[in-house]
């Protein structure tokens, strides 16, 4: 079956929500089982005492990327039909920096905070409530942000196009970089004093 299945109308859209629930369960289970329901475990990546976030995140990214490239190459999936977030240069960078600030204060990102909520962490509940407020605030103040939000749209451009590289070469370099980071992380972890949490 040539994917993506729902956009190709191989699976009817009525199944959408059931599939969403099942995929979400897989997502939540893996995040929690990896330790992402604990903010102090997550923050270990930034202080060098526990690189679980770096390992899980980059392993997941290169696994999914490789799967997509392989399926596309074999003709089992049309990768050109996959949704690509449009690149609004300033807004994407500003948003990332604001999120990084929030990360350092809150110790969660939205997905991991839901995992914390599910196992009873009050800090995760406060983070999630904050998320709601933040999005409400942004929406209410939108006229103020609309300029930045809508400026410099480069469309659904891919990183290798931006760099003028072939897709597979970039993907290969990304895997090499990830493996390099895994070795670097193991090295740093050995040097840094353990933190009990």
């Amino acid at each position: 079956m040539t994917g993506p299945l729902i956009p190709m109308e191989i699976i009817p859209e009525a199944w959408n929500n059931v599939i969403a629930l099942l995929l979400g369960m897989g997502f939540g289970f893996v995040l929690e089982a990896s330790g992402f329901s604990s903010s102090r475990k997550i923050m270990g990546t930034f202080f060098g005492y526990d690189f679980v976030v770096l390992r899980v995140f980059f392993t997941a990214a290169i696994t999914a990327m490789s799967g997509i490239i392989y399926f596309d190459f074999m003709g089992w999936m049309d990768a050109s039909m996959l949704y690509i977030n449009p690149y609004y240069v300033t807004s994407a960078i500003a948003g990332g920096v604001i999120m990084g600030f929030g990360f350092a204060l809150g110790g969660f990102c939205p997905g991991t905070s839901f995992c914390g909520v599910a196992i009873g962490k009050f800090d995760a509940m406060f983070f999630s409530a904050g998320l709601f407020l933040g999005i409400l605030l942004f929406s209410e103040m939108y006229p103020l942000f609309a300029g930045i939000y809508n400026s410099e749209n480069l469309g659904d451009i891919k990183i290798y196009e931006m760099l003028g590289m072939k897709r597979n070469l970039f993907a290969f370099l990304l895997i090499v970089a990830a493996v390099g980071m895994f070795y670097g992380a193991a090295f740093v972890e050995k040097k840094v004093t353990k933190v009990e949490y």
Partner: protein
Amino acid sequence: MEHNKRDGSFYINPYLGGVLLGLVLFATYYVTGRGLGASGAVKSTVVTTVHTVAPQHAHNSGYYSQFLSDDISPMSNWLVFEVLGVLAGAFLSGTLYGRLKFKTEHSPKITGRRRLIAAAAGGMLFGIGSQFARGCTSGAALSGMAVLSASGIITMMAIFGSAYLFAWIFKKLWI
């Protein structure tokens, strides 16, 4: 020493976790043509709430109105069901490994109260940032990397880069 798998201290191998998460993400792309997300579900909840409380205001707003359509409620959004799944999946894992417990996790250097205030402030900033970036760590950064989107990878670098800087500024909150 072998850990008891049910006392809350056991976590799966991070590389195994990464491969499994990657497979879930890949399956999501293969089936739906889109990636995973998290902040989008909260956005849907905000839009629905505002639309219920003040429908006129929602329709007039330049932001909410982008996500409102006449026949489909924004709550019946794909991401809302996905996040309900996330809650269920995490609950399952927490049950299996003995981590279900009401508590506020914080560094011994700060009070629980301070941790909760910082968590709420962090969540608020994450909420604002995720709107600018059109997605959070899941929807923009992780899903974006899987399809090598420029937007996703730049946002990912901005999140982690600034988090490194800010984490050291707020070091006392953590270690």
